[in-house]
């Protein structure tokens, strides 16, 4: 049975620590753009921890929400891409094919979640920082669009491993960098086609909502709402 990779993010567990953000940088060769570019709104964070204030002092509340590509089943980014650089795979991932991307940036405009990032310049790693680069992930050059891939390199590796051992992929065996690094275990990744997988069970919880559900993008990430308790 084909996999359908999905994720559940428990906002009641998330403490906004930002470990996932660094993990993503380490895993996916995401360049640090530097202060001057960051100031121009070009910092690249495939996953970001959104924070929203509520109320006024002293009754202030704050909400964290990790947001990355929602891997929508009805993804607005896909139909608009003139070259199929952004397209849907058999396993339901929103693929971003760098070598096919000509940089219209239409996908990023169409994406309601603003989770697509454009390479405004060629990335640079002062040596020997480049020794840390992950050889399993492309280094994106100027002019292409990039975004969270659900760590497709880990998914592929896991599937190849399972195939080599003539078995199926075990639940929890494949973990994207963000889910792996989260010490509060707020991010859970797995196969939505397997009703018994941890992620499926979480996605069924009544706390579960989808981000901007009303837009009908059918995201594959379920957000478990923060519970309140007087």
């Amino acid at each position: 049975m084909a996999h359908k990779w999905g994720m559940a993010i428990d906002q009641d567990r998330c403490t906004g620590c930002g470990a996932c953000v660094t993990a993503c940088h380490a895993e996916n060769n995401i360049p640090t753009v530097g202060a001057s570019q960051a100031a121009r709104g070009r910092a690249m964070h495939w996953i970001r921890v959104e924070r929203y204030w509520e109320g006024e002092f002293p009754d202030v509340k704050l909400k964290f929400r990790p947001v990355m590509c929602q891997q929508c089943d009805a993804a607005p980014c896909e139909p608009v891409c003139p070259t199929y650089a952004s397209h849907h795979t058999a396993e339901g991932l929103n693929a971003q094919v760098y070598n096919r991307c000509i940089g219209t940036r239409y996908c990023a405009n169409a994406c309601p979640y603003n989770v697509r990032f454009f390479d405004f310049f060629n990335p640079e790693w002062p040596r020997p920082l480049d020794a840390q680069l992950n050889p399993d992930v492309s280094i994106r050059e100027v002019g292409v669009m990039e975004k969270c891939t659900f760590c497709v390199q880990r998914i592929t590796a896991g599937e190849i491993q399972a195939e080599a051992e003539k078995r199926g992929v075990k639940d929890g065996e494949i973990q994207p960098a963000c889910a792996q690094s989260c010490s509060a275990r707020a991010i859970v990744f797995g196969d939505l086609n397997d009703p018994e997988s941890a992620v499926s069970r979480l996605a069924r919880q009544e706390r579960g909502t989808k981000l901007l559900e009303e837009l009908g993008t059918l995201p594959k990430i379920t957000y478990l709402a923060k519970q309140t308790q007087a």
Partner: protein
Amino acid sequence: MDRRDFIKLTAVTGTSAALASCGNPEHQLIRFVPDEDITPGIAEWKPSVCPICSAGCGVNVRVMDADVRTVRSGQAGVVRMNVAKKLEGLPTDPISRGGLCARGQAAIQITYHPDRLAQPMKRDGARGSGSFKPISWDEAIAELVSKLDALDDRKALAIVTRPHRGNRDALFAAFAQRVGAPAPIAYELFSDDVLRHANAASYGKAQLPTYDLAKARYVVSFGADFLGTWGSVVAQNAAFGDMRQARPGVRGKLVQVESRMTTTGASADEWVPVKPGTEGVLALALAGKHDIADAEKITGVPAKKIERIAKELADQKPAVAIVGGPALAHTNALFTATAVNELNKALGGELLGFASHNAQLSTLSAQPFAALADAKLLLVDEANPVYGAPKAWKVREALEKIPYIASFSRFVDDTTAYADLILPDHSFLESWTDAAPESGSLDAKPISAGPVMKPIHDTRATADVLIAVAGKLKTPVELPWKNGEELAKSSQPSTVDRRQANPAPPSAGRQPTEWTDPHFDGAASDYPMHFLPYASPAFGDGSTAHLPWLQELPDPLTSAMWSSWIEINPKTAEQMGIADGDLVDVTSSQGTLRVPAVVFPGIAPDIVAMPVGQGHEHYTRYASKRGANAASLLAPVTEPETGTLAWAATRVKIARAGDADGSLILFAGEKYEKPHDHETR
């Protein structure tokens, strides 16, 4: 570094790294024969220990092949070697349990940092200028040995280190002891020694407690940012997650008592702002040991609220109280700590325990660096007091007077800039390393791990250097270990109880549970605002400010990157006409800083908060001269009995100094999710 510093061809892009003869210099460099067997493209996982904070998380290192520039017998070239690619938590480690915080993961950039010192360095400029020239290890060690031998009195040898680093403490303590020097001065800005003392008094354990949050139904935390920057953060995050959602039908509640909202406060179910330094009273009131009406007067927390929380605490067992951070950075800190201990006892305290780990206390002195005044030779290891100590302690001035300073730092930082000799250490991935976790898990044991990769520079493990130096002295001195490996493996715990070095036991005389007013530096009339520095979630006390990933990591609450800033309550800001990014002059009795403002809803109108971590004079291309150093505003106020710095006891005044100059870089566009909800239509 602005990318436009380089002319670059992007008309057509993509270097054919895979292809020969594509004009890529990679292929003009000669290739040395690798010294190890390499399976290209296949990852290996090796255990190590995270060096960033004293939590001592076990990490899992992904090791894979990569080309590394190197020089062999004067010949530049590349060699393929197995190098670390990524740090993850070690699933079998009781502390990290597979998770790892942002700082821990970024630690890998220490190894590959472009400005890391590649060989021993000798000063060739004015002190503090940070200009050095490379020398050989033989020269370097010989020089240090001669300087040590030249000392007529070994008591004039001072050592400054950072506490709680497992066997590395033992190494320097042993070195000091055997060569007859005074015990090392172990300094950290955000010290928890008050709590250790209080615990010594309350529980007979001068140690940070381990809280079994996963079992808790109710948690009251007094100032401790235990999910962000305080204590064994990774372990506490894991436990917190389970406390919230791991038990069907049971969800633990977290009440955070503090003066400025931290990430922990943001994750709390209830956030209770209090007047700085009054947390202890609230604790006593909750324990039923202080009149609630009076507590309201002192803390500013409504009596009703106190009563309610007290009731909830009584009803929802098991419950536990945590104290730390700014709550214990006041002149009455020992009282506050003891008061919270009292509360814990009242709550039964079954969730509070101590890891099997011997106590260690740092130097106890109202002026830890006084000893430097008459030092003739100074060794600095992983400490940066020039940056992290209050100006009034005159560390900089003391260093300028010391005839000879040697540092083991991997980077030129504010303190190392004053060194005459730098003997750069390996990175933790290149050498034997260990940790003795003080808290975080009751089954935490001291752990050690070997190098996961070969050194990429001509550096040496400090343990080996010290052992060599000791052995080369006129009257050779032998350290208990033959080399760094033995040191790391040595089971003899990192337990140098430095109290005998500087005896000042917590006085049993005065009853520490009596409420005492906190004293603040600066009269309320001249300095109307409380100044609350806090450990930056990304940089801690500033020791990781040189890592680009962390510089570009948006701050959890403000979303700021590459910046330092001061947080001001919206009302106050409005009154003073201050908007996000506007420049503000912050003045304490110690001086003035000009920093951009962040209008911050989670802080009281009479308090301003500023993260520590930026504002280094020297700290690599990424952190040098970036932002301002909050520590430089701190007055030298200490907790009288333990002598630890009361870093939250400074008052300041603020004034709008100008419009935004772009030095505040925010990642977020908006503070509120529905900014137009107040619109009337």
